């Protein structure tokens, strides 16, 4: 039986796919997440879990939250969290990374990418976790020309950007660290989902895509007559760009992860064929209705027009990628995954990326997490229910010491453990190992019970709730919950009305 996996970087673009795909594969996952200024770690996990359920159309269990930060000793995990890891986890998928192409005043990207990786390795070693799956980047090859091999680590002249240098240093660190069986994955340029176009970030390729939309002046809509841009670019147009969709990267990594005999190697998670810049430009021109981009070679553009200067300024951050002309060796990848070729980067794919980005207004009008509905199921179960139970006549008949679990699947779901404790309910996230009773259900079934559209017992008889553990206690406790809800509804009908109907 596979044990749990510790996943770092789940809030990242690729991380959320890794989390989803691990859950879909039935793996138990503990995720290292830190809170930020806008959201608590819990809320961030809620959002990731919702994404996993919605994008897979599955009701997936909520992962175990390990609230911590790669930038603090022991990753900021408390004793209980470390004990959970020691007991449950046997592998770590390390996808956390700080993406900054220039050094920041607080030491990034090295602090997270190198020192954070070191802290993770130390923690894993102290907890007996011996299997590491490390997300690197194909661009640890820096400015190399020719073929970059999977089995070598060579930054060329060492002139890669800060991010590449930090990822290179992290690989070196891992390579020199004994006691871990390490598998390294190096994706190339990662873009949105090849099936849906979904992305959560708008860097790199998207900057060019959006620039194309603006210059063509058509908001991405095709026009009958092409807009002539008359732009010269100081490139040859032959530069090779290796682009892969996020869903394939995640799938490929997890496929290798599921084959222990393939562990211990390095894999370039890259496209079988790189695209020439002029090919990409042609696809964009067809989609957006522009022409007139010319390639004047790599010698620079001393007499750039104002428009050309603007475009080059947009490219500045990515110049090293645009000029890269490296071929990525894929022999390890092909040996491990002969039947999982990456989807082709073609006009249909780009058009899906474009359509999603435009619907999402390039990420600019995404609702802020703080605006999420404050009356969520989690909020009700953790705050409102225990508080109101105290004032309920049911409190005095709560069986002291009884521990029960609500295991709620689907969007808004999660696992909550409750202990009846002298007339009150003590609640915590996760599944108590010593619970007498666990109720398993999908979120809409629980919402129906809480809003008294159906009693808990009836939902059980109708097969919408399952019971694990002591069936008699479970039925009796369900009655107590019903009695509580009936009384609570009489006292304050609005409170239960406000629980949003999940699903």
């Amino acid at each position, binding site marked *: 039986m596979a044990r749990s996996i510790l996943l770092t970087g789940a809030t990242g673009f690729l991380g959320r796919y890794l989390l989803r795909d691990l859950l879909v594969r039935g793996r138990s996952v503990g995720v290292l997440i830190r809170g930020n200024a806008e959201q608590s770690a819990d809320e961030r996990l809620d959002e990731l879990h919702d994404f996993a359920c919605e994008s897979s159309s599955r009701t997936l269990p909520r992962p175990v939250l390990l609230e911590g930060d790669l930038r603090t000793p022991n990753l900021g995990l408390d004793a209980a969290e470390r004990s959970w890891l020691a007991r449950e986890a046997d592998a770590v998928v390390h996808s956390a990374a700080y993406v900054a192409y220039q050094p920041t005043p607080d030491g990034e990207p090295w602090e997270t990418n190198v020192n954070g990786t070191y802290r993770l390795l130390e923690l894993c070693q102290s907890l007996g976790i011996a299997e590491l799956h490390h997300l690197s980047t194909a661009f640890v090859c820096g400015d190399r020309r020719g073929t970059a091999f999977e089995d070598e680590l060579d930054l060329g002249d060492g002139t890669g950007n800060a991010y590449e240098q930090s990822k290179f240093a992290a690989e070196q660190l891992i390579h020199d660290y004994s006691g871990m069986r390490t598998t390294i994955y190096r994706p190339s340029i990662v873009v949105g989902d090849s099936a849906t176009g979904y992305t959560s970030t708008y860097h790199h390729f998207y900057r060019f895509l959006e620039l194309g939309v603006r210059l063509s002046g058509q908001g991405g809509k095709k026009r009958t007559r092409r807009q002539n841009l008359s732009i010269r670019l100081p490139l040859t147009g032959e530069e090779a760009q290796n682009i892969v969709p996020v869903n394939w990267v995640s799938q490929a990594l997890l496929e290798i992860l599921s084959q222990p005999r393939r562990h211990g190697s390095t894999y370039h998670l890259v496209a079988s064929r790189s695209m020439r810049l002029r090919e990409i430009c042609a696809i964009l021109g067809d989609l957006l209705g522009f022409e007139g981009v010319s390639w004047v070679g790599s010698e620079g553009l001393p007499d750039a027009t104002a428009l050309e200067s603007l475009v080059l300024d947009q490219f500045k951050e990515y110049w090293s990628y645009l000029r890269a002309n490296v071929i990525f060796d894929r022999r390890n990848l092909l040996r491990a995954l002969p039947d999982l070729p990456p989807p082709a980067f073609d006009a249909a794919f780009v058009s899906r990326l474009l359509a999603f980005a435009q619907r999402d207004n390039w990420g600019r009008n995404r609702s802020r997490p703080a605006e999420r509905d404050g009356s969520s199921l989690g909020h009700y179960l953790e705050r409102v229910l225990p508080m109101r139970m105290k004032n309920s006549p049911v409190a005095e*008949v709560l069986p002291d010491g009884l521990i029960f679990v609500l295991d709620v699947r689907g969007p808004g779901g999660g696992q909550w453990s409750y202990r009846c404790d002298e007339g009150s309910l003590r609640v915590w996230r996760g599944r108590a190992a010593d619970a007498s009773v666990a109720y398993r259900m999908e979120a809409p079934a629980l919402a129906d019970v809480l809003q008294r559209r159906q009693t808990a*017992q*009836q939902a059980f*008889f109708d*097969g919408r709730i399952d019971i694990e553990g002591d069936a*008699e206690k479970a039925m*009796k406790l*369900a*009655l*107590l919950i019903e009695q509580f809800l009936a009384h609570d509804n009489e006292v304050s009908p609005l409170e239960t009305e406000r629980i949003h109907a999940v699903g």
Partner: protein
Amino acid sequence: MPSAEMSRPVVEGVRFSTADHVLEGELAYPEDRDTPLGAVVLAGSHPLLGGNMHNNVVRGLGDGLAERGWATLRFNYRGVGRSEGPRVDVARHMAEFWQTSHVSGEMDLWQDVQGAVDFMRATLDPSLPLVLIGYSFGCALLPAVGRAANPAALIAVAPPLGKHDYSNFADSRCPLLAIVSEDDFTLEQPRLKAWFDTLPEPKRLVQKASDNHFFRGHEPWLVETASAFLEEHLP
């Protein structure tokens, strides 16, 4: 006994009186039969453990047997749903119930089953055979009703033998079918055997793992088992 035919049931909401209360029920009968094969009264599980007329076992047997030609009545005990009677007083009942799985006065609910039998006798041709079916706690109420009602058959589904007195089933004078789930949390095999040995013939014990005490997903099997028994034993 004519062979049972499958026909769509009609389900009517009904109200009937017992000695003390007016109870609600659902009468199910075949749409395309002038005379049903007989009357079936269903006594559900404990009202504090989901015992109501919407329970999957009660509803499954009620509708399933009606499809096979029987007129069936399921109902809510006093104080449940829209049946008259005192509601559960949490503070008074729950502590006791949590500890013992009993509440005072629960055995009086046999009067509710009696009211259901009286209603069926008054509604249908009283010469039709009467079958009493109990599920869980409802099984314990059957003998008290059976003494006066003179049923043609008794069916006990998942009788929780350790929780009530079932010794008076030995006095029954009609065919008896016991259906037990092998993975029932209330089941004690030695007690089941000892009890079943005391019962007069004709009798049958059918056991199968059927979702603990609850038979979720096994309702058609319950109908099939009950129907086959009735076909075999009723004249």
